[in-house]
């Protein structure tokens, strides 16, 4: 999980985007690209279609901004990207033969096998993720394995842990927070600053 530097989505950001500033374009593509991947991967059948939808969304957003940048306020940039992505998605559904809408019970692709859909995980990040996962408490790792690797029925997991579904979400939340903290620490190891004793 590469931590993107936080950018303020302000008028200056949009101006830089319209002017093809490389750093801003890269941030925009990575930030919203990852969000669109999350959104689209459970709705489209293949990584190729996800990528097609993302590229079409980027094209439309940037075209619109360049033609009429004042029509999008900085505060609504995210909502605008999401709305355009929705439009692209619905058009792809309507195209019919190439894509098919999946029902709500559809689960994400099985990432245990290497495939193009797998993920936000870039190759160079896999090792870091592996190391961070190894630092989680055993209980967290067991629950995560049951949930995401073995795809066990959640009611069975709850029965095993003697918890309800709401508390299972809490357990996942805590595991995720520990994961985030550990990942942040790993990113920070070269940036340690000290307040010396007064």
């Amino acid at each position, binding site marked *: 999980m590469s931590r993107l530097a936080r950018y303020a989505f302000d008028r200056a950001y949009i101006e830089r985007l319209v002017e093809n500033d490389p750093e801003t374009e890269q941030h925009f593509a990575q930030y919203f690209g990852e*969000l669109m991947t999350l959104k689209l991967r459970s709705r489209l059948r293949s990584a190729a279609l996800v990528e097609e939808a993302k590229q079409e969304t980027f094209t439309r957003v940037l075209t619109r901004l360049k033609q009429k940048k004042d029509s999008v306020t900085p505060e609504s940039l995210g909502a605008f990207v999401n709305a355009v992505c929705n439009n692209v998605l619905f058009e792809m559904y309507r195209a019919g033969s190439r894509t098919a809408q999946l029902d709500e019970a559809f689960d*994400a692709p099985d990432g245990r096998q290497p495939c193009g859909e797998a993920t936000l995980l870039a190759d160079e990040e896999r090792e870091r993720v592996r190391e961070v996962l*190894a630092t989680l408490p055993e209980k967290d790792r067991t629950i995560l394995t049951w949930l995401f690797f073995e795809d066990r029925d959640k009611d069975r997991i709850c029965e*095993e842990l003697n918890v309800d579904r709401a508390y299972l979400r809490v357990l996942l939340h805590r595991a995720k927070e520990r994961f985030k903290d550990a990942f942040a620490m790993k990113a*920070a190891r070269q940036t340690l*600053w000290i307040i010396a004793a007064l």
Partner: protein
Amino acid sequence: MDHRGAVTTLASERYILGEMTERERHLFEEHFFDCPDCAEDVRAAAVLRDGVRAGLIGDVPAMVATPKGKVLQLERAASGKWWQTAALPWAAAAALAVAVGYQSFNVAPPTSQPFTVAPVTLRPTSRGQAPVVRKGPGDMIAFAIDLSQPPPQGRLHYDLTRDAGSPVASGDLAAPMPGTPLLLLVPQKLLASGVDYVLTVGAASAPASAVDIFRFTIDKER
């Protein structure tokens, strides 16, 4: 869906677990495309899920299901050597970072031996509850400070105060690299048990301008 609603209903977890209706998913997506905090949260959850799905979680105790569906935990395979654990490089890295930090401030370290830190993550007050920090062995408490704004070039200014306003410590620091948290070691003797603290961090050039505010409480000693 607003931010408070997303946080209190554990929307990121429900999204990743596939427990939302299509309408809820749309509402949450509308929100996290506009909310950097929730975007980061759902990204982290997705990376966690994907990492586990990809088998990166590794050394988990073997588990099998009985015919009745109960799960048994089997004995772990022979454990590796201590120097093969994932903790060691972390500890080494942390110790090295501490040493480098001390060198950069030209302050003698408290010991001639390397030591590790187990930091408490502080996030801006808008992003969740203030953590309760327990004093432990050692002289310092380590904080990993997740700045919400990109650190400005140059230096940062911090103020650590009691919640009531009385100052505890303040000073200037070099900004961390973009995308990385600020790490801060605070001497435990500065922090009293059972007291709420506020840490503000902003640009040194304009201390009164946009700052991040972090809160934490030191646990009561038992």
